[in-house]
């Protein structure tokens, strides 16, 4: 199998991840639900994971690291903590439905700061225009899950700080490859999956919260704290973590975080970018292929999209799948991104990398695509 769909979920994980999941299932119970050894071991693992995440993302207090089911869960918590029904919200032109659907459900007025693909300055200028006094929140993806476009989130965050507007970062495609400095960004929240660039198991995610940020619950229930009260605790992480934790998942995520720390985000990014460059060069040489690539490599992460003339993207994905090459075709749950890039009608075929891909994977893909055009 040539797996090139890490923007959805990384399939290859460090060996220690599965080992930790298995070990946790046999040895750990639930944090805060007992003083016995299995419960305390689970508590130690959860705390170690919070600490590892706080260190990686430059968050002072591990209490502000909240475990979630995935990035969608984290972003829903963030959005519903800041945005009220009917509010005006600014988003980029590259958002995922994990952001735009909650806003639609809240009946928000959504202003799109749309810029052309890979055009950072134009995107920043669009935010500058759209962030007006009635705006209650700005939400921006760090990296487009369709095109790998790295948005200028540091500058957007700075704009929000200057104008006193809360900023929510969707770090779904950047966590584990790009630096995320919560203390410098000053964003209200950052949401991310555990199962992509952090190499944890599916069913894990993180919500990073600014110190003192007000939060709203999506779920209410047992937390192992203040049990005599019927209101949810007002402190993190308990407030946003009702119910039993996914401790096997958290144990695996801890190992994923340790892997990222050991290898280094910069090295993983360098590796993925080299594979993206190889893909762009290889596919661009195939007649009839359109590749969506940044002129400036520093504006693209480990994701690249392409299309074949006269062939539906889903058919390309299907045919590659039959050759044991896993890619993702369609709209990738991101119609805003396709609208911005002009691919809403066609969709794209997306190739996305992880630390475990090799140059041979790209060669196999390019050869397969070349074969389809003959």
């Amino acid at each position, binding site marked *: 199998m040539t797996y090139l769909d890490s923007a959805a979920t990384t399939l290859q994980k460090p060996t220690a991840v599965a080992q930790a999941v298995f070990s946790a299932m046999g040895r750990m119970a639930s944090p*805060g639900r007992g003083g016995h050894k299995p419960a305390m071991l689970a*508590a130690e693992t959860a705390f170690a994971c919070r600490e590892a995440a706080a260190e990686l993302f430059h968050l002072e207090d591990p*209490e502000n690291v909240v475990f979630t089911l995935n990035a969608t869960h984290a972003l829903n918590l963030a959005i519903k903590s800041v945005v009220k029904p009917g509010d005006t919200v600014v988003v980029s032109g590259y958002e995922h439905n994990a952001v735009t659907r909650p806003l639609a459900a809240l009946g928000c007025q959504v202003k799109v700061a749309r810029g052309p693909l890979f055009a950072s300055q134009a995107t920043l200028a669009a935010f500058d225009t759209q962030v007006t006094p009635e705006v209650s929140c700005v939400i921006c993806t760090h990296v487009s899950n369709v095109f790998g476009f790295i948005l200028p989130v540091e500058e957007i965050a700075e704009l929000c700080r200057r104008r006193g507007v809360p900023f929510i970062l969707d770090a779904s495609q950047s966590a584990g490859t790009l630096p995320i400095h919560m203390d410098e960004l000053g964003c209200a929240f950052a949401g991310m999956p555990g199962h992509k660039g952090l190499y944890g198991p599916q069913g894990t995610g993180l919500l990073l919260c600014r110190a003192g940020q007000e939060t709203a619950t999506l779920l209410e229930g047992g937390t192992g*704290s203040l*049990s005599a009260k019927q209101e949810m605790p007002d402190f993190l992480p308990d407030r946003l973590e009702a119910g039993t934790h996914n401790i096997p998942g958290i144990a695996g995520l801890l190992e994923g975080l340790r892997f990222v720390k050991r290898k280094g985000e910069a090295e993983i990014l360098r590796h993925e970018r080299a594979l993206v460059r190889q893909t762009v060069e290889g596919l661009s040489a195939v007649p009839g292929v359109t590749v969506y690539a940044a002129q400036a490599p520093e504006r693209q992460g480990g994701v690249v999209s392409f299309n074949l003339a006269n062939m539906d993207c889903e058919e390309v994905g299907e045919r590659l799948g039959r050759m044991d090459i896993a890619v993702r075709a369609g709209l990738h749950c991101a119609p805003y991104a396709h609208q911005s890039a002009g691919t809403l009608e066609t969709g794209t075929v997306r190739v996305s990398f992880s630390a475990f891909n090799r140059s041979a994977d790209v060669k196999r893909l390019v050869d397969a695509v070349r074969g389809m055009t003959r």
Partner: protein
Amino acid sequence: MVYYLIVCRSLTYAQRTELALDRAGITAHIMRSPKVIDSEGCSHSVKVSERNLAPALVVLARAGLSPKRVFIMASDGSYKEVLL
């Protein structure tokens, strides 16, 4: 043996408290708070020895960690709140 219980608002807070004390060389252990001292339901406490309370409070103040309440366990097994 007489010891003190530093009651924490959450398990994670207790873990931060234990870590701060451990880094300062003060032996501390997390335990579930005895029901009699916990009027709001379940919570966790950090247990320190009698001689370590004063330095522990200094360490915690430096780390910005505020104990919710502090109790002393007397030799007869009863708990009495320590007013800070």
